[in-house]
């Protein structure tokens, strides 16, 4: 279980997170929505231990990771898989080597076993026979799928997705969402996803949390968010220009 308690973070004099509270249950798909520049990625970086908060805590199964460093933090991160917004594939390596990299570095598996698992993961994300390609030679959608394969190849307990469908066409958005849904059903990992793909995310989310002006203003299942009485939530999910939340 992940618990975010009173998380605060400012960059210089600019407050970004102003007391975020959020609980993510084991095995659920939690999707954090909110306007661009609203602090969703900053929140995710705190969950990953890449940023340290000014105040507050991030508890992963009761351990506050904001207090951890070095080997202790690495031990928590061994349970993680992360799909970055741009994929963050290593451009000096082939698709195969990108997916194999965490296995080579973090496990004692032999070359044959690694090759088998990599091919299996690439097949699960629909990229058979693409292993020899360089990340620069494949499309944006394929890069996202390689990133998903790399994140899942170590069979992590918790997977974080940072806007995994940004910049993709609607068909690819649905393809990636369906892929995440299928993989979640199969592997039952806890998923935390940052996204603003409305309404597509309602199909895959167990719960949705709305981050607005540095705080979670509403949490609930897809239906309760869609029927929320909060005008800011309504304006966001309907993409209305006029409303409680003024367009930037």
């Amino acid at each position, binding site marked *: 279980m992940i618990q975010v308690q009173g998380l605060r973070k400012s960059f210089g004099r600019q407050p970004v997170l102003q007391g975020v509270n959020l609980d993510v249950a084991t095995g659920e798909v939690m999707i954090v929505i909110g306007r661009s520049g609203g602090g969703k990625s900053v929140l995710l*970086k705190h969950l990953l*231990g890449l940023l340290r908060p000014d105040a507050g805590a991030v508890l992963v199964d009761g351990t506050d990771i904001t207090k951890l460093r070095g080997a202790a933090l690495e031990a928590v*991160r061994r349970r993680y898989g992360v799909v970055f917004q741009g994929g963050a594939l290593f*451009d000096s390596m082939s698709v195969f080597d990108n997916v194999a990299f965490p296995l080579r570095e*973090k496990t004692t598996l032999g070359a044959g076993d690694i090759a088998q698992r990599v091919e299996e993961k690439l097949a699960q994300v629909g990229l058979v026979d693409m292993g020899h390609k360089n990340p620069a030679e494949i499309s944006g959608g394929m890069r996202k799928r390689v990133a998903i394969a790399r994140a899942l190849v170590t069979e992590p307990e918790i997977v974080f997705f940072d806007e995994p469908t940004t910049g993709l066409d609607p068909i690819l958005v649905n393809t990636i969402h369906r892929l995440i849904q299928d993989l979640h059903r199969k592997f039952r990992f806890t998923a935390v996803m940052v996204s603003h793909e409305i309404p597509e995310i309602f199909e895959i989310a167990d719960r949705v949390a709305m981050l607005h002006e540095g705080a979670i203003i509403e949490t609930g299942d897809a239906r309760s968010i869609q029927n929320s009485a909060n005008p800011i939530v309504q304006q966001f999910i309907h993409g209305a220009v006029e409303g409680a939340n003024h367009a930037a």
Partner: protein
Amino acid sequence: MTDGSASPETWPRPARWVEALGRVTLYLVESLGRFGGFLGETVALVFIPPLKLSRLAGRVYFIGFKSLTIVILTGAFTGMALGLQVFLTLQRVGSEAFVGPAVGIALVRELGPVLTAVFVTGLAGSALTAELGIMRITEQIDALMVMALNPMRYLVVPAILAGIISFPLLTAIFDVTGIYGGYLVAVILLGLSPGTYFGQMHAFADMTDVMVGFWKSLCFGALVPWVCTYKGFHCGHGAEGVSRATTEAVVLSCVLILVFNYFLGTVLP
């Protein structure tokens, strides 16, 4: 009296100057601390296994082998220019026999280590900064961290060790090609006897001179990758951040090479 809770913009001008000075001082101290801490962590990781030998070999190829052509080329022309000017100068006082030792000592003690380090900074150091900077802005360094892998071990330690291995070897190659460049001009083109060129060099230059050049190149071999990887690792946002980091890395490396060259020259025999 200044209200402590008021924003600095509302303070009287002298108080704002003091605040700005304090802010700059704190920034400098913090940057120096980060810079030193970066090297400290790298040194510690050298002695904590595992050492990534395949990455080290890749970096030796990148910094050392790929710089070979430019080092040979610049070494030869530096030696030729030096041979020509020293010959013409010493000819005025009838001492052209000392061209060999003058070229040899100047190259081995000063020009070899300094120019090699400057050229390798421009060639490999800038590329190192740009590569790490792009890895930073495309979240590849974050990806390593969340895979529970230490990016310093993968990206910085091999680069600094490769610099320590490559710089002395490249400097030796620069020195040798430079000496033969001087030979080409002084002996082949200007008619100095080959025996005089090498004989006088042998008489006046000794192992102490070679060791001064070696220690300098070893020092620059750690310094240049340290500066370049640090700047890449801590680059700003976007293409502008990478570009600024690369410029700063090259400028800072070159300035530090010259500063350290002077101080090492005063300390070493």
